[in-house]
């Protein structure tokens, strides 16, 4: 077990790589009542084409299968795993994103039993034809629920018109049609390939003694057998730099139109550190111009082009990166035109040294506030680890940023060809 101390924020991380390849991180917080655990595989909705473990031919699996698998891991031959956690007074959940699937619990008692329950249920799949069929009804309703949400449709619609063929453009849960093709055998294929311990990270944060917890996890892993696993061979289509479409719109029963601008960020050839660096800078930049204190937001708000539903987000991953800005607008065409112009004019804007210090201070405060949350630490530590970066180095990284870094970032930022606009229009 290795120990790493981060003095400025007063946190200590214990880590160990198990013999089977599983990476474990522990954050012991004896002052907390709660313990939170999250078990994550580096496998999400975009991992559609790959070579299954032990085979040599590449396969492409149905859309939405990673999410389907997430649902099905909770069901065992004789029980539902939610009830195991219930018996231990804990709550459990799971989520699937573009790049990850994660299983988690939160407990205020029976910490070790809950850790064991989490690790054992994820490492012991049971899929049957009957239970796969049953899940199709449940997931169909989940998909329909999202179909009725205009914000969701706007967000995924924007991504869909940014990408030509990269699987980030498909819905994480798939479609009501695509999930009908999923079989028990597909689930096992994906499971065996992507749920190998060497592709997973376990993070436990909260009230426990770290040595004892690490021993507990090590013993648990030593009792199980896994085949040798070479590095996973995943394949993604080559994606052009430009946006797929320059504009797109759908119609829905909404009272107010929704409008978004999407930017396709370039991540090709970037290291983990560079991804983090760019993510921080793009976030600070958007915040500077488009948060409540930003001059562009102020202009859009004062002129009545947007209301306080306006928001932005930026996501940077190994395989893709995008930024989306938008919200409700009663004048969507004028809003999008103005917003695009603003984004393209950022290159001509000047950021003063004073402003840049302000941007850094705000980011530091935001980061420190987030550290109150065990969930934030565990989820983000895992996320950055999978990118090859340490979460607790984010603070020194922000502190070391210089105005010149921002200028260089802006210089190489988006071109108009990497932008798209997307509207959700009220039905006539």
């Amino acid at each position, binding site marked *: 077990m290795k120990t790493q101390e981060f003095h*400025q*924020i*007063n946190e200590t991380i214990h880590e160990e790589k198990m013999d089977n390849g599983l990476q474990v991180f522990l954050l012991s917080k004896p*002052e907390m*009542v*709660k313990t939170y655990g999250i078990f994550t595989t580096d496998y999400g909705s975009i991992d559609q084409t790959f070579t299954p473990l032990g085979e040599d031919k590449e396969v492409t699996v149905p859309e939405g299968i990673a999410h389907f698998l997430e649902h099905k891991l909770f069901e065992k031959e004789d029980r*539902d795993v*939610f*009830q195991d956690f*219930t018996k*231990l*007074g804990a*709550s*459990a959940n799971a989520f699937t994103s573009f790049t990850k699937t994660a299983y988690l619990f*939160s407990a*205020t*008692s029976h910490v070790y039993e809950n850790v064991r329950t989490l690790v054992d249920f994820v490492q012991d799949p049971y899929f049957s034809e009957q239970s796969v069929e*049953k*899940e*199709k*009804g*449940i*997931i*169909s*309703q*989940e998909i*329909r*629920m999202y*179909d*009725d*949400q*205009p914000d969701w449709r706007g967000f995924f619609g924007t991504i869909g018109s940014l990408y030509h063929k990269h699987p980030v453009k498909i819905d994480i849960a798939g479609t009501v049609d695509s999930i009908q093709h999923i079989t028990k055998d597909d689930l096992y294929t994906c499971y065996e390939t992507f749920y190998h311990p060497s592709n997973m990270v376990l993070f436990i944060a909260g009230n426990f003694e770290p040595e004892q917890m690490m021993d507990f996890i090590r013993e648990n892993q030593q009792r199980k057998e896994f085949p040798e696993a070479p590095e996973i061979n995943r394949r993604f289509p080559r994606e052009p730099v430009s946006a797929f479409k320059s504009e797109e719109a759908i119609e829905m*029963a909404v*009272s*107010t139109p929704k409008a978004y601008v999407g930017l396709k960020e370039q991540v090709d050839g970037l290291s983990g550190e560079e991804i983090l660096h760019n993510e921080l800078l793009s976030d600070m930049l958007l915040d500077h111009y488009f*948060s*409540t*204190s*930003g*001059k562009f937001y*102020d202009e859009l*708000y*004062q002129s*009545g082009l947007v*209301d*306080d*539903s306006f928001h932005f987000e930026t996501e940077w991953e190994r395989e893709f990166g995008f930024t989306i800005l938008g919200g*409700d607008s*009663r004048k969507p065409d004028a809003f999008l035109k103005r917003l695009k112009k603003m984004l393209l004019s950022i290159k001509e804007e000047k950021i003063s040294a004073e402003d840049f210090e*302000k941007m850094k*201070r*705000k980011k*530091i*405060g*935001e980061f*420190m*506030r987030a*550290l*109150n949350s065990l969930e934030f630490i565990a989820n983000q530590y895992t996320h950055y680890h999978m990118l090859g970066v340490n979460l607790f180095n984010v603070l020194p990284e922000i502190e070391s940023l210089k105005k010149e870094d921002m200028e260089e970032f802006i210089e190489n930022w988006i071109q108009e060809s990497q932008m798209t606009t997307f509207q959700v229009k009220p*039905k006539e």
Partner: protein
Amino acid sequence: MKTAKQYTEEQQGYRLHVLPTNKYKTVSIVVKWKAPLEKETITRRALLPSIMEKATENFPSARKLQGALEDLYGTALSADASKKGENHVITFRMEVVNDRYLKDEDSILKKALHILNDVLFHPKSEGEGFSASVFKREKETLAQRIRSIKDDKMSYANTRLLDHMCEDEAYGVHAQGHLEDLEPLTNEELYSYYKNMLQKDELDVYITGDVSQEEMIPLFNEYFVRHAAEPAPATTVSDMQVEEPREIIEREEMSQGKLHIGFRTHTFFGEEDYYALQVFNGIFGGFPSSKLFMNVREKHSLAYYAASRFESHKGLMFVFSGIDPADYDQAKTIILDQKKAIEDGDFTNEDVEEAKQQIIHQLKETMEHPYGLIEILYHQQLSGRQIEASELFERLEKVSREDVVRIAKKIELDTVYFLTSLEKGDA
């Protein structure tokens, strides 16, 4: 289990609650203004927080105010308005990085309190009104928000259920206000209501983080002064008996139907039965191991979600589920059968114990979050009874099987509401 240590001081015109803890890297301040829930004032109260957080005397625009907060290491300030039983509560929340984690010398907390004081007591004004431009813009924004409720089908179904169920009760008013009251509202009327609120609302201030009571009291005396309030008359909650359960179906263009069912629990926060109500809800629909989830979702594959929750100060309980429009009758029957099953004692002692452990876990988890803890303490403040966490857990532990059956029978079905897709030929 460590219980929260709370120091409550009656300050001039408000109660100050100091909750020292070393769990957080930040200091959180929550300010709560409370008045009776009324159709006449709700729209004004819905509009006030967004105006107050936009511009003050010292920081006369949203950009300047936000800029000042950002200078304090991105101190977060937010404001909202909500219903708590038949009270209306306007809440301001501020979260400041604790000075000891920063390399700065000046006290950030002090500066942040200064801004908070400005926001609450010195909004930017012009004559006998707020800044005219802020008023105009925020009025438009609120109107927009009211019109957009329809776009979020789950909250729209909730709103419609309450419209029908609490037609003649204060609780039926909309927390975000009503368009017909917003349109004629003038800046002067709102400003005069604000002055009235400063005078009459009950005010509670909470602060939690690595702070001490000795430091906080003088600090608040300096930055947080209010002229003594005239105490408002205590509100009494109306509790209606159900004459005949109603069934209402409404249609919109959508693909999934929203089945929302309202019940009367006749049970309120702070009462003896309240603990049994929590356990009942745990067995019925509060968790993924509850009857609703296990039957509507796992057994019959009808829904992705099927759950229940209750309103503590108004004695209501709601079930909600998203289903295929064709499955309405089946889903409704299954849901109502689950309640009947509990009335008939169709659950195990183990179910009771598990529900208790889930509730205790949930409470402990909430108490560990700064805003969560403050919400729990404020609930108690509203009910007029302060209960130690340990006593709370003891009372939960004492709930018996018979108590759960009794509560199940006490809970009355009031309204079945179904928001569903248009019929063929409607569109």
